[in-house]
């Protein structure tokens, strides 16, 4: 449980730094939508940067837009994908 919250914190930190977000890590909720109305307000360029950052920081490849749509919903979904990858459940393309 401690590992999961630490992972989510690292993901949020990565988002704030790489996307130059004007919010702090503490202000991002785990289940807050990243895109769309009422979300963190990310756009397609942010998504592109997130995909590269996930590969660079966690070795997680997001192979196509369909996978990105599933993985990049919120911090929870990103953390789950990273965990699956780290335990060998996520295929690397």
């Amino acid at each position, binding site marked *: 449980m401690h590992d999961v919250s630490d992972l989510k914190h690292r993901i949020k930190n990565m988002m704030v730094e*790489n996307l*130059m977000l004007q919010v702090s890590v503490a202000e991002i909720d785990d289940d807050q939508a990243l895109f769309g109305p009422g979300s963190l307000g990310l756009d397609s*360029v942010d998504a*592109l*940067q997130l995909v*590269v*950052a996930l*590969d*660079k920081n966690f070795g997680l490849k997001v192979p196509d837009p369909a996978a990105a749509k599933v993985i990049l919903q919120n911090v929870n979904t990103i953390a789950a994908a990273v965990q699956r990858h780290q335990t060998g459940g996520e295929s690397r393309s």
Partner: protein
Amino acid sequence: MSARVILVTGGNGGLGQAIARSFLDESADNQIWLGVRANRSKADALAAEFAGRCHCVELEVTQPESWKSAVSRILAQSRRLDVLVNNAGSHQDSLLANMTPGAWQQVLAINLDSVFHGCQAVLPTMIGQRHGRIVNIASLSALLAPMGQTNYAAAKAGVVALTQSLAKEVARIGITVNAVCPGYVETEALARMDAEERKAAAGRIPMRRFGKPEEVAAAVRFLACAKASYITGSTLKVDGGIL
């Protein structure tokens, strides 16, 4: 000036050679990679002259897999990629009425598709670095399309448009994308003109002379330098004042 890793496509041509030399002059620490195909004697000679600083890498610019392989090789050896100069190009001029579909497609592939594939190949690296410079060699034909070059002019106009659009996409990531439009420059293409064509061409240039590859290379080097950090999406003509 800190050391940079630079990939120049069309590394065997006169303009590619001049661009490479310009970056070699910029810093003794720069690493230059020349994208080459089967015809590579001049590129090999330059790599031999600047052994350890200048390298050749096999690159078929119209093939995404070839780009992937070339970028992987550069990263394996140089660890980063700071500048991409999309310089490779060719033309097959004829009136549209006589132009074969093959001539149309080939010129579009070499001059425009190549830029798409190249940018796509280097972007993940440049995004990861949060820094990069892309300079696309377009042509004056993109802005002032002459007769007999529907394929080439359309391709180069496409390069200018791609440059502007991509520049907006990656501006916030620290990557700049600019185009250079050379006019009549003393390269292989100009050497193929006969005396009468050269005279007519020179007459259209306010400076009354053809450009030198080094003069185009200087523009490329400027757009790729650190001080050009607020210039993106621009098109820089190097044409002796034609337009």
